[in-house]
């Protein structure tokens, strides 16, 4: 990117501090590191040279952040972090205004905006705090979080209808699980229960089939019929008898689909769950999964990820699977394996799955999405 373009991208006025000389070349070297340390030697030399440029290099750091991989972003982040650290210690001026402008511009790369905010916080925490309060609708989840925290604090200081109104306002923008629970609990006490399942966008209506065999954990790799075809009218040879698809709806606030309920508490078994998702548009999205059993997830027949870990823990949004939704009907298939362990903490045979954007905002199916008909 040439300097004039860079300045335009950053929405900057002419700023000597921001003017890069050879910063861009050095920073591109950092952004180019690959897998398994590829490019480390070149990046190590470039990092020192870029840091030596001081605040002049920050513009290039931000413009390159998000163009490579997450490890490359850390090379850039640490360059920015160190430049600010050195500037603070030596009394060099820092481009507070430019950093603030960069954060405000939501068209900028998410990772770069987060870095700009962190650098502002490192260099002027008061200014960062003031800016943070304005980010209540920010598409980047970690940036929004701070603003939501202020809303929750403010709501907690109110009583009655004023509190309810404030919490309902917070509910509109809250995305993180812990903050949502705080808001939901408060609204429940104020007589205004929250539909958490819909708020988060958990998929609750599924068809399930099983059990198939998972003796010695062999079922994880074994390809059973639902991986070859989805025909909800068919039955197949299961672990001990014929099995067929059956509808199952999760009533859990957090959308947990517990296979122990439709299939009974089994061990060394594999099951599948299938659902469809109507997307109003073709778009990028994330399937976010929580599961403590071995699992595989397919979207429209394409395997998104597979993981063979059992009973080490589960939480909401444990795995964020980037995906591309078709406009209209999308088919989601989840394989969930239960192993042989018999301890009390190995009973769970379940998962929770939601569709959302990269900021954690639920993408509701077209039929439920109030924006879908517009």
């Amino acid at each position, binding site marked *: 990117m040439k300097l004039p373009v860079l300045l335009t991208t950053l929405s900057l006025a002419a700023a000597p501090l921001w003017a890069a000389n050879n910063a861009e070349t050095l920073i591109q070297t950092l952004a180019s590191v690959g*897998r398994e*340390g590829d490019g*480390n030697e070149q990046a190590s030399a470039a990092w020192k040279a870029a840091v030596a440029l001081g605040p002049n290099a920050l513009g290039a750091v931000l413009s390159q952040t998000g163009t490579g991989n*997450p490890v490359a972003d850390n090379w850039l982040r640490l360059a920015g972090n160190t430049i600010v650290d050195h500037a603070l210690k030596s009394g060099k001026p820092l481009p507070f205004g430019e950093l603030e402008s960069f954060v405000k511009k939501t068209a900028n790369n998410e990772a770069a905006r987060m870095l700009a905010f962190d650098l502002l916080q490192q260099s002027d925490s008061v200014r960062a705090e003031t800016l943070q309060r304005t980010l209540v609708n920010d598409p980047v989840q970690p940036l929004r979080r701070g603003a939501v925290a202020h809303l929750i604090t403010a709501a907690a200081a109110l009583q009655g209808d004023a509190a309810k109104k404030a919490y309902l306002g917070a509910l509109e923008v809250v995305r993180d699980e812990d903050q949502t629970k705080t808001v939901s609990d408060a609204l429940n006490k104020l007589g205004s229960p929250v539909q958490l399942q819909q708020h988060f966008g958990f998929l609750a209506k599924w068809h399930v089939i099983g059990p198939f065999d998972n003796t010695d954990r062999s079922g994880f790799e074994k390809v059973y019929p639902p991986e070859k075809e989805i025909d909800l009218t068919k039955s197949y040879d299961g672990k001990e008898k014929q099995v067929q698809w059956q509808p199952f709806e999760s009533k859990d606030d957090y959308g947990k689909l517990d296979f122990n309920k439709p299939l009974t508490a089994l061990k060394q078994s594999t099951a599948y769950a299938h659902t469809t998702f109507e997307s109003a548009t073709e778009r990028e999205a994330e399937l976010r999964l929580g599961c403590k059993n071995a699992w595989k997830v397919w979207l429209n027949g394409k395997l998104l990820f597979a993981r*063979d*870990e059992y009973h080490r823990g589960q939480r909401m949004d444990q795995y964020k699977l980037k995906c591309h939704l078709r406009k209209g009907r999308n088919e989601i298939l989840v394989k969930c394996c239960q192993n042989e362990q018999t301890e009390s903490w190995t009973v769970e045979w379940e998962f929770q799955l939601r569709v959302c954007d990269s900021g954690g905002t639920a993408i509701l199916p077209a039929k439920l999405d109030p924006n879908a008909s517009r």
Partner: protein
Amino acid sequence: MRSRFFINSAAPSSLLSLVLTISSLPLMHAFSPGLRASDWPHFRGPASSGASMDASIPKDPKVAWSASLPGRGLSSPIVIGEKVFVTASAGPDQQQLQVLCFNAKTGESLWKRQLQATGRTMTYAKTSVAANTPCSDGKHVFALWSSNDLAAFDLDGNLAWLRGLTADYSNASNSLGMASSPVVVGKTVVVVIENDSESYSLGIDAATGKNLWKLERPKAANWSSPVPLPVKNGAPPAVLLQSKNGLLAVNAATGEKLWEHEAAASTMSSSIALSDIVYAPVSGITALSTSNSAEAPQTLWNSRQINPSTISPLLLDEKLFSVNGAGILTMAETKSGDVKWKLRLTGPFSGSPVGAGARIAIINEKALLQIVDSTAPEGALIGQIQLPLNESTKELTLCTPALAGNRIFVRTDSTLWCLSE
């Protein structure tokens, strides 16, 4: 139990003769030349035995200084020269990974670096993403977190290289958290990334951050740490890996397997390798002789009376010490494994004991640091200090102390403490 010795079939018999000849030469650890005896360069000190030959432990420790930490963690501090380094993690999902450097004498903050986790940060609530103790070759600090991010800085905070080991190997993680601490052996940073799924150990070039070797390992969660094996003059630096399947000695530069001892080793407590004996957490403690480099190790003794549980043992002045989770400190003879005394301390413990001279220091989860005279006939508690904890955050102390000079360094979730006489 079964031991196996690996040797290249093409190796000339003269090589075997050479190995046998030098086996009687003095043993030493493959320390980096940049390290001094006064340094505490990695988990459990210079020889990964819990002991320092250089430091002294104050009988009645007092707070020399303390420094608030911007993130939580249970990793131990390390000390290189007059700098102390500690890692931390912050943010709602502990995505912010921090390396912090302090002046060891004054507690002055010298530098802080922060990166973003590229791997998974989910852990069991009691542990944290900053669980792995960093390590050093005397010129660099190599910091590893539960997210499998590995960062190398020089001692002044300049970035040398980075790796994202879950970014490289996408199924390498443990939803309870990873905790194995890396170690520098020769010119190799040895990293254990062993878990139920994509399980491996790596030898990474300390200079470039690139893989020297990658070993597939048992698919099972493993929180134990690799330890450097003493090497005989002329022999290559070696490292000991352990898993539920046993012990594996590996050439640290090449990843070549040297010998294997098949037995169910602990996946939490780590081994000690000093002189030509390995004390391994196998069925209690098992002592193995590695005196003959040309053969697989031979079992010397086993004692189930020494049960290190999740805590790693301490070897001090030819005595073996072990603390169980309930707080019983056990002393055993290294030659026989015979237990000589047991002393009840105030637990519960997660951190391991460390020692220097005749004294042992260990801190319990409630931040009560206890000093034991290991030479008293039945062991004796001779000093203690209660460090304050933040009750509102249910703060705990899970770390293993570090020793340097006449100072003890410990960290609670919120604070780095320096204690001296």
